[in-house]
């Protein structure tokens, strides 16, 4: 059954100041209603400041990253969208006409990009409103209904998240800074819009649920009506929204208190000049420039800082070796410690010298990983870390002694190996590694073990 999915994504931008006043935007870090002023609380008589130029530039940059055409030399009105809700201090939200159109990401066409401001936060249970968030700038991205499945939607959103976070101009998705509405229709049914989705995961679940719901209806010969539904995160289901909310007419008017935006080609050019490379384009370049695998490049560009670090390192050592290390060991260590590349405090030089040690055979890859782990925790010269961890200086005699000791202590394993059980050798090797506190090269250990056992026989 043919499925069509389109998305409207609202993403908070990471500016220091709000859109139309000078209040700070770190609404989560401060007590309720402390990042507020007469403007963002809509006090009688207050007038907006001119739109925060940084947010406009950030939105242009995001639109460019998505391959959109910026609308230049035209009047872009900032409109008032009226609705009545406690989180909206003036009774309207300011939203611009599109600043850009006709982009593309992952084969999904981007219809338009525009600017909005976030409302405050209303707690219906407590009956309180907090306006710290009111006026935080948002960029809204609207796609064409080019997505065919919830999986595709999830993949698209992940790629989009990566692109957005790459710009460094948005707040992380994980903090609820990305919210979205999805619309989905199955062949033969009406278009259903689902609102109130606060994460990529939520979008996936809402779409999954809707497909099942709509498909079952169509199977039973029922009609899927065109409607707007709300996603209930706690239940992972969707419910119809009250009709009152649907009949709403926002009565858009251009805000008379703000001059419309007019973007000129010069401004777009200067934003383009200072823009970071989009991750999907960077991925292609890394593959070509460093002759590394697409898979490795994909992992490396997943975070801008990781890719920056990689490129700094790849200039100094074998890019392939570096890419393998970044993709596997570094990523593993970071994931294990729940860190992102942005949190890394060691220098490119330090990881370069570690990779050189591995390249020269001074340490084994396994030892290298131990050093890497330490490097993440306490950045320092890898040679020193090697000392500190006591990984250096395992003499051949020591290793031989350890091997002999292990074989002696595990006669049964030796017999098993001789009987053809290859695993027994791994078991023994593990014992040797443990005895030598990971200082031995596993490949050497296996070789010695094998020689010793076979020799013994």
């Amino acid at each position, binding site marked *: 059954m043919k499925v069509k999915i389109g998305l409207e994504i609202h993403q908070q931008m990471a500016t220091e100041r709000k859109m139309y006043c000078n209040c700070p935007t770190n609404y989560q870090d401060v007590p309720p209603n402390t990042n507020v002023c007469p403007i963002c609380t809509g006090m009688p*008589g207050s007038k907006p400041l001119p739109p925060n130029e940084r947010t406009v530039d950030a939105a242009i940059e995001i639109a460019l990253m998505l391959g959109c055409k910026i609308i230049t030399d035209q009047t872009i009105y900032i409109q008032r969208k009226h609705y009545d809700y406690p989180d909206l201090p003036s009774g309207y939200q300011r939203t611009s006409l599109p600043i850009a159109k006709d982009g593309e990401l992952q084969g999904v066409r981007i219809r338009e990009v525009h600017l909005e401001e976030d409302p405050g936060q209303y707690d219906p249970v407590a009956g309180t409103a907090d306006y710290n968030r009111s006026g935080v700038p948002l960029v809204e991205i609207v796609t064409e209904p080019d997505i065919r499945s919830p999986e595709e939607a999830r993949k698209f959103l992940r790629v989009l998240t990566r692109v957005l976070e790459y710009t460094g101009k948005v707040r992380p998705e994980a903090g609820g800074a990305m919210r979205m509405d999805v619309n989905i229709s199955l062949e033969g049914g009406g278009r259903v819009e689902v609102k109130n989705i606060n994460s990529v995961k939520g979008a996936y679940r809402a779409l999954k649920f809707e497909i099942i719901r709509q498909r079952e209806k169509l199977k039973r010969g029922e009609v899927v009506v065109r409607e707007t539904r709300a996603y209930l995160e706690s239940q992972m289901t969707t419910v119809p929204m009250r009709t009152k909310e649907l009949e709403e007419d926002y009565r858009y008017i251009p805000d008379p208190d703000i001059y419309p935006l007019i973007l000129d080609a010069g401004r777009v050019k200067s934003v383009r000049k200072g823009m970071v490379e989009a991750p999907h384009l960077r991925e292609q370049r890394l593959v070509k420039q460093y002759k590394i695998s697409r898979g490795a490049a994909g992992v490396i560009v997943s975070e801008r800082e990781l890719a920056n670090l990689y490129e700094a390192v790849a200039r100094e050592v074998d890019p392939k070796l570096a890419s393998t290390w970044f993709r596997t060991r570094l990523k593993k260590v970071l994931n294990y410690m729940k860190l992102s590349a942005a949190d890394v405090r060691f220098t490119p030089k330090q990881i370069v010298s570690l990779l050189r040690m591995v390249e020269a055979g001074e340490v084994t890859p396994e030892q290298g990983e131990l050093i890497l782990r330490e490097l993440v925790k306490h950045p320092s010269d890898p040679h020193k870390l090697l000392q500190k961890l006591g990984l250096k200086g395992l003499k051949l005699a020591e290793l031989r002694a350890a091997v002999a000791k292990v074989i002696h202590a595990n006669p049964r394993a030796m017999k098993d190996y001789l009987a053809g059980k290859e695993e027994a050798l791994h078991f023994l090797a593990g014992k040797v590694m443990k005895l030598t506190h990971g200082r031995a090269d596993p490949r050497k250990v296996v070789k010695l073990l094998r020689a010793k056992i076979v020799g013994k026989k």
Partner: protein
Amino acid sequence: MGWGTLGKLEAIKSGELSAAENVQRALERIGKLNKKLNAFIELNPNAEAEAIDRKFKHGAKVGKLAGLTIGVKSNISVKGLRSTCASRTLENYVSTYDAEVVKRIRAEGGIVVGMTNMDEFACGSSGETSAFGPTDNPAAPGHIPGGSSSGAGAAIAAGLCDFCIGTDTGGSIRNPASHCGVVGVKPTYGLVPRQGLIDLGMSLDQIGPVAPDVKGAALLLEVIAGKTPDECVMLDVERVSYLDRLGDGVKGMRIGVSPKFAELTDPAVMQVINGAVEKLRDMGTKIVEVDLPNLERGLPAYYLIVSVEFFSATRKFDGRKYGKRIEEVCGEEVLRRILRGQYISRKEYRGKYYQRALQVRTLIRHELMAALKRVDVIVGPTVPKLPHKLGAKLTPMEMYAYDYLTIPANLAGICGGVVKAGEVSGIPVGIQVQGKVLGEMEMLKVMQALEATA
């Protein structure tokens, strides 16, 4: 009294009259007359002039308004005072900050004595829609003072204070200035910051002076005009000065008049205006006829635009933050405008009403701009008819008809000022001088010349 505004300023500077005395006298006069006039609806208990007198004594620098008393229209924010907009909606709303104009007035030593009465949310042309009761006209007792800056017009006519600041969206400064026989100026849109002004129609609202004389109006305008980086929709004007060139005379100026004015205006009123125009001719100006074929179309366009903007502006009075939901407690005219705005801004009617109104606005702007290319100012009546008796019942259309001649300046964003030209049966008639965008200097010169001959 009898000093004129600048004379009084001199008297305060020379010590002949102390600032404290000036404030005291204003408060006494308000105490004596306000009960009948109802021009002020809130007094400032902290109106304090001692600090200014001390400065004079020590020869310290004082501002351009040092010691003068000011009444502020109740839709402008004055920290600590109630900006009620003369509505039950904001009956207990105390401003938490000073409007930009109030800041500037205070910085120049002006002393806010209180908040003046007005039509509710500036929706009216008679002063009768105030939730705090109507204002009487001291210049024609028993008649309306005009509106919506009704209290401002009456306060100046009765000498309750030295200045008032009012607001003008479709004539709300000029109309009461005409009816009360005082001076009022609606500045060019974007010349005076609106920060702190509670909206009626944001694309039309402008704060301006109401004063006993043209020099006073010019002085106050110098203080409040000029851009602030904290406001978006403003003209790029740092500061203005008018007083030094006010007396330059009008000889050689080109004065525009339109046959349209007589079509729309009571002949008795028109007679006074024609007399004033003749005086201007005698002063060596050139009287030029200009064509304003669509002037009267401004009225319906205006009421559509202002209603849509007012509907939007009043959404914040939702009953959650300021006590009462506006629709539940407001008067008839306010409700009429909200409902009209709500109706015509509906998606299905956008093209039909609002967009059309904006097109008419553009048409009128072009028409006035074209006329003002040929002349320095356009001179004519302010209000088409004399003020009615307080309490007389008018239909909404009859009430709106007061605004035919003042609305075009707001739609076009140009400046307009009013000065008394004469009387009809003892009722003042003000003449309106409309100037170009930022043509305040020419406009004030003509007003000054007219004032001198009145």
